[in-house]
């Protein structure tokens, strides 16, 4: 049984102009110890999925359709109380590195202890502190620094501390939302390596969210490409990288590759705006930016095409 499963999941935000469908009909699954990466430009709904998994959608956001299951248990409509019990204990999160994810006026160690003792009340304060020290060692931090305040940490150290915090209750899944954005390249590499190592050692499943397809490729065995609230292509790392089927995926890969060449011009598909999600277009959402679009794409919603048992794409005219 899959650890985490989404079926036809739709998430909407209530806005002044109407219901904004940030995520539309998204399905995916994550095996225990597996890794799945969401990639897409900002505003495509990938963070929304992460937040929905944590039950942390903002007040104007809600799951409007589909199911979201954790170990077979539907998370939609579950009571706040039970959801709270689940959080961190089972599903932890590593936040964007650019965020002030640590409370500035509490010691870093105390913030981890708080999570431990919340979910495992039987653990004494001393035991919890001991666990924090070992977690710090695990993520290559000096255990003595657990008594420091966040502002005394560098960006990379903060991110390590957050990873330590995510591991504090030995969760089954960690959602990593842009964990390396805003870190410099060397630290970025270290953190990614850290996540990989931890995933292996602790045997924890990872749901990785990033706008950077290269970063996702470093960590994840499976990749889902998102565009305008929909998954447009899904497959193993190899399949998506070697045989990208969706024009958008190709554009992403092109952009990633061309940046490394000199005087590269951005592919056409990288220009333009995402469609309005309050009143999405009837046909393919990528229509406006697609170099291969035709009349059918405009009129009818696109449908899934399976390219292999693990590789599928949401497009009428996928050309291998």
């Amino acid at each position, binding site marked *: 049984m899959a650890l985490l499963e989404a079926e036809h999941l739709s998430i909407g935000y209530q806005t002044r102009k109407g219901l904004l469908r940030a995520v539309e009909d998204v399905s995916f699954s994550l095996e225990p110890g597996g890794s799945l990466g969401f990639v897409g430009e900002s505003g495509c709904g990938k963070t929304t999925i992460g937040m929905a998994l944590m039950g942390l*959608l903002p007040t104007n956001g809600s799951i409007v359709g589909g199911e979201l299951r954790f170990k077979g248990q539907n998370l939609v409509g579950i009571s706040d109380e039970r959801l709270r019990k689940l959080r961190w204990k089972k599903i932890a999160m590593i936040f964007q590195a650019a965020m002030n994810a640590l409370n500035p006026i509490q010691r870093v160690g105390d913030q981890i202890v708080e999570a431990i003792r919340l979910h495992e009340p039987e653990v004494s304060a001393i035991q919890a502190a001991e666990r924090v020290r070992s977690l710090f060692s695990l993520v290559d931090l000096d255990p003595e620094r657990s008594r420091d305040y966040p502002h005394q940490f560098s960006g990379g150290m903060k991110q390590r501390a957050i990873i330590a915090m995510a591991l504090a209750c030995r969760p089954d899944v960690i959602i990593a939302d842009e964990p390396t954005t805003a870190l410099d390249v060397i630290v970025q590499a270290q953190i990614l390596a850290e996540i990989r190592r931890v995933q292996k050692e602790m045997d924890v499943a990872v749901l990785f969210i990033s706008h950077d397809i290269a970063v996702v490729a470093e960590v994840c065995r499976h990749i889902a490409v998102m565009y305008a609230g929909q998954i447009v292509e899904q497959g193993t790392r190899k399949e998506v990288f070697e045989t990208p089927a969706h024009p958008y995926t190709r554009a992403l890969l092109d952009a990633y590759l061309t940046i490394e060449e000199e005087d590269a011009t951005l592919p056409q598909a990288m220009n333009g705006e995402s469609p309005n999600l309050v009143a999405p277009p009837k046909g393919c959402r990528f229509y406006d930016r697609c170099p291969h679009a035709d009349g059918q794409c405009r009129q009818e919603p696109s449908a899934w095409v399976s390219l292999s048992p693990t590789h599928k794409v949401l497009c009428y005219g996928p050309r291998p």
Partner: protein
Amino acid sequence: MKTGNEQRDAFAAPAGRRDWLAGGWAIFWENPIGKIGLILMACFALMAAASFVPPLLDPMYHPMHGVDPEISHATGPSAAHWLGTDFIGRDILSQLLAGARIAFMVGLSAAFMSIFFGTLIGMISGYAGRFADTVLMRLADMVMVMPTLLVVLILSSLFGQLRIWTIVLLIALFRWPGVSRVIRSQTLTLKHRPFIEAARVAGASHLRIIFRHIFPNVLPLALLYMTFRVTSAIIIEAALAFLGFGDPGTVSWGMMLQWVWKTGHMFQAPYWLLPPGICISLLTLSFYMLGRAMEEVLDPRLRKEGESE
């Protein structure tokens, strides 16, 4: 954070200035506080505009010199005097209307001037940095230490009754440091933005950079502060007049309260005591509400200052 931004980005990114205004207005109007504030203020503006009418009807309705020939003591509401008369037979309603005009005048002009000084000094201080910055900010510290009401009180007590415009100027002179600090820090962040750097590289003069590039960017903030300054200016003027240090040649609400108080009608002529007090409170309230609502429109992260007076 992210989720919130995500959906906002989806809309707001391409919006132009007009859309921004329209969107701002929508947010403003949706806020009950902004709505109530604006409606209240409109009522007072109407009162101020109407203040020109009564003296035209009959000279006895002149707020300062007009007395009802039949009445020589304080009387309650009647057909000829809807809110009654004061102790020498002047019409309270016309005084109240004239008071609205003065309150707007005092509030807006004092606020405008203090914002003008504050913005100018803040921009110069932030942009010039170094010596000018130090001197100006120490000056701001110094002025900030002085409780405005007390200082104006002292000045008007020392130098005799001040004219209303002097009072306005004094309020402005002692009210700029708060604004200039905010504008200064805003300027500091703007200073290193690419477009300013670009302008500098392009050879724009300092004045041009300050007024063409920095000023439009700090303007909304300055306007926001202006609403709060209006409130404090009105309150200071009223307090001053109430304590007997106002301009005796003008009919302000504080002045009316002073008359009630000093002539011994305080606790026996509610028709005379209540209206000016209510008006002062409501008008300052309306500006305050306007400011709060604007604050939410402009930038939810703007911290409002804690005024202590």
